[in-house]
């Protein structure tokens, strides 16, 4: 049986049948990993050369280049075909991912050629993300070295299921079976710690062409396939997830009133016409009426097809929402654990509000915790506060809105995400979701009637009267609202001091204290602000229940939100104080943020690009100019309302 060497060459006259056949080939994307010295470029050059991809004029250019900067002595330096950029060529190394294309009678191939140096983990991870298979090169003279382990770890981290361990330079170890077997054994021992379902071992010599395209007579003891033959026949299409239908909506098509289609790529699973689907996060259901593919209507669709779905009912669905089968749902969570690869020159700053992009959703996210960092060479875990370029760690992430995801090992499409730096817009990190942290305990709505009821069930053993007797006060919340720079904090701090001096028990909360810990993952968007105040209001409620007076200083620009805060705290003990200062006063008092907002470098600043709604009915309305008078007014008000002081007889 003659195998391999199936390079393209149509018989004259049969070009149409050649094209028909060529069109039906499938596509294999593979990664090659190895160091400069392992002969990786030579191997790829050989594959490309033998599949007639290298045209004669490129070879002529190559001969010209070889004379000047070639590294291969008198022989043709195949590596020069691959290393594209001038600077790299002069250094003689490949420093980025380069994609190469070739084809045989059986298959088409895309090679992601990535470098093996430690500092370029980033590039290897990039190449691995789209590959079905990885060729890991080992120098037969050196065997399994640190670098081999690193490459294998990264390949397993990115979820590649097929590995070829190509033991190269067999010619330099006299084609020894013993050497080959030893390397295979070492490698097998190492990979038991990783999840790699399919590993194929091939002894070869890229330079001499042994076992690359044709089986070599130099290694009669080897009974496997040549590298190219293996690449042509390895079965990869079943690697896709056909079980869990996930359709993240990419764009909504609405050309006219009669047509409303949801376009996107099938991330996993199969969808059929007439099936019932559920939309997430709304959980509304409908039936598939049409599936439109690039070639017209279809009865079913599967990954990775790009399609458009129409539904029987008008349900609200936009980009980032997901269509799924009602009996097979992804996770819907704001918190999850993930393996994160740091891709940015800039060290991870744990206080950054990143943009996260996952399954067509873009929202804000924050790294809560680094559980550990993994050393890519030893796989050892260590503690760290921040990840640096090319470092990998297991982290906990919280996003501003719930994400729809699956664990990466089950679903490469819905389990992957990128983190984007909010200032530079660089892709700072990429991640693979392990799973949710624990069942969601963070309601996304501002007031959750159910949790309110639960809180009310809790009963302290200390009676209200006992508390009032001890503290000589009644628990209440003074909520100070007003524009940035209106003097809220000055009032709050002065009040706190005055009340304390008078014997009251007070807790003060303002924006910076709340954001430093309790709310550190929230941003300054209207939604972030609302969530921040919702949490603070709940804290006030707990403290007020225990007899403590709370003073809160927040811009709180929305009337509707302020009403909800009163609901959370209890309307009878929530007192809204409005700092009535004009925008001009505020700007001159605290100009920095306003200037940034004017330049468009800061968004959502009430009074500039976000409305501030003047309270309709505040308990007190104060002017900032005379603070002493304002404080006196509040003290008087607290006396009248019987908050503080109260006589022990009451």
């Amino acid at each position, binding site marked *: 049986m003659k195998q391999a060497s199936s390079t393209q060459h*149509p018989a004259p006259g049969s070009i149409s049948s050649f094209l028909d056949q060529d069109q039906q080939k499938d596509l294999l994307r593979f990664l090659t990993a190895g160091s400069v010295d392992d002969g990786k470029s030579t191997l790829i050059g050989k594959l490309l050369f033998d599949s007639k991809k290298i045209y004669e004029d*490129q070879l002529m250019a190559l001969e010209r280049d070889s004379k000047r900067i070639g590294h291969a002595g008198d022989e043709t330096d195949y590596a020069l075909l691959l290393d*594209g950029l001038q600077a790299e060529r002069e250094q003689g190394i490949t420093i980025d991912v380069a994609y190469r294309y070739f084809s045989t009678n059986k298959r088409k191939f895309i090679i992601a050629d990535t470098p093996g140096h430690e500092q370029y983990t980033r590039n290897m991870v990039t190449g691995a993300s789209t590959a079905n298979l990885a060729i890991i090169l080992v120098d037969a003279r050196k065997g399994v070295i640190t670098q081999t382990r690193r490459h294998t770890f990264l390949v397993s981290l990115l979820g590649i299921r097929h590995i070829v361990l190509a033991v190269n330079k067999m010619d330099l170890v006299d084609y020894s079976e013993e050497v080959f077997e030893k390397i295979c054994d070492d490698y097998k021992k190492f990979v038991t710690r990783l999840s790699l379902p399919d590993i194929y071992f091939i002894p070869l010599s890229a330079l001499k062409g042994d076992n690359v395209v044709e089986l070599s007579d130099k290694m009669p003891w080897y009974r496997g396939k040549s590298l190219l033959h293996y690449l042509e026949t390895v079965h990869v299409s079943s690697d896709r997830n056909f079980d869990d239908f996930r359709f993240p909506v990419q764009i909504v*098509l609405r050309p006219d009133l009669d047509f409303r289609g949801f376009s996107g790529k099938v991330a996993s699973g199969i969808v059929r016409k007439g099936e019932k689907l559920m939309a997430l996060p709304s959980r509304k259901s409908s039936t598939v009426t049409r599936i439109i593919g690039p070639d017209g209507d279809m009865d079913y669709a599967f990954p990775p097809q*790009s399609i458009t779905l129409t539904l029987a009912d008008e349900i609200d669905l936009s980009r980032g929402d997901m269509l799924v089968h009602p009996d097979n749902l992804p996770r819907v969570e704001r918190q999850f654990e993930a393996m994160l690869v740091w891709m940015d020159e800039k060290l991870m700053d744990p206080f950054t509000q990143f943009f996260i992009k996952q399954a067509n959703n873009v929202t804000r996210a924050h790294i809560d915790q680094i559980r550990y960092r993994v050393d890519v060479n030893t796989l050892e875990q260590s503690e760290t506060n921040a990840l640096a370029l090319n470092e990998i760690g297991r982290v906990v992430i919280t996003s501003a809105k719930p994400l729809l995801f699956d664990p990466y090992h089950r679903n490469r499409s819905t389990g992957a*995400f990128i983190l984007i730096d909010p200032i530079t817009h660089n892709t700072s990190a990429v991640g693979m979701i392990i799973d949710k942290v624990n069942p969601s305990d963070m309601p996304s709505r501002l007031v959750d009637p159910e949790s309110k009821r639960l809180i009310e069930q809790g009963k302290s053993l200390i009676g209200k009267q006992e508390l009032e007797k001890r503290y000589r006060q009644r628990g209440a919340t003074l909520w100070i609202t007003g524009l940035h720079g209106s003097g809220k904090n000055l009032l709050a701090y002065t009040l706190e001091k005055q009340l304390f001096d008078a014997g009251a028990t007070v807790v003060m909360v303002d924006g910076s204290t709340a954001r430093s810990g309790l709310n550190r993952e929230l941003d300054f968007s209207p939604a972030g602000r609302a969530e921040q105040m919702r949490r603070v209001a709940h804290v006030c409620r707990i403290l007020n229940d225990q007899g403590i007076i709370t003073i809160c200083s927040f811009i709180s620009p929305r009337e509707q939100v302020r009403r909800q805060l009163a609901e959370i705290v209890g309307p009878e003990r929530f007192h809204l104080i409005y700092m009535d200062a004009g925008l001009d006063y505020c700007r001159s008092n605290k100009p920095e943020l306003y200037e940034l907002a004017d330049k468009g470098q800061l968004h959502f600043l009430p009074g500039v690009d976000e409305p501030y709604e003047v309270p309709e009915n505040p308990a007190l309305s104060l002017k900032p100019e005379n603070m002493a008078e304002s404080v006196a007014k509040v003290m008087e008000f607290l006396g009248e309302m019987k908050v503080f002081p109260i006589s022990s007889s009451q």
Partner: protein
Amino acid sequence: MDIQNYSLNNLRELEAESIHVIREVAASFEKPVMLYSIGKDSSVMVRLAEKAFYPGKVPFPLMHIDTTWKFREMVEFRDRYAAENGWELIVEINHEGLAAGIGPFTHGSKVHTDVMKTQALLKALDKHRFDAAFGGARRDEEKSRAKERIFSFRDRFHQWDPKNQRPELWDIYNTKVHKGESIRVFPLSNWTELDIWQYIRLENIPIVPLYFAKERPIVEHEGTLIMVDDDRMPAHIAQKATMRKVRFRTLGCYPLTGAVESDADNIEKIVEEMMTTTKSERTTRVIDFDQEGSMEQKKREGYF
């Protein structure tokens, strides 16, 4: 379940990937544009865009940078295709260059290409404030393109920095840009020349007839076969023209685009010729002979 039913052939997989890329741009950018060179790759890209938004209309225009030296057949094809298929077509010319009389015969290929093509493109992008521009480039065309991202970031000055590219993983594209910055998007990145021909054949995509062999007035100039397309060619060169059966493997400015002698007058014959040929497609572009790594140099300057 038969798994075979759920696998795509290579062409359909590439098609799905390209449509995903095109939709991602429409969903993420405020003002995208599709750069249209009138070549075969552009024709495929345009067809993919039509498919991506079917039955709706494509939500962005086509833009052609007209150096004023394109083959006449290209310009006719462009106008007819856009009109028949309901595309909004923007044609931009560097009028300053035109007024200064810049042209390939008078100023040479380097100056002409820089002023009438690269500079014209940059001006047009600034003028319309496009934040994303599709190009039909493929990674297998040329060495320096092999490392180009599908979403390729350009700074305020439209510069490409090969050392500082954004990592691009899975099919999750980083589409964030600041004002003035932009992204060049290459939906055909993973297509090869053969894939393009296959797709044109499969989908019956109209292409400029210059790709097919025909008797044309040709002069041989410094080893390159140039077609006499109008009377701007200096008379002492043009008068040597003879009718030869040629076709073009790439299309551009007629004085800068070399023809190849060929009998390939249909797609099958073109592919057959391609499979047995000894020249890669870019060698028929005169502008590539300027200097080693010249494509990389042009890309850094903002050329596609």
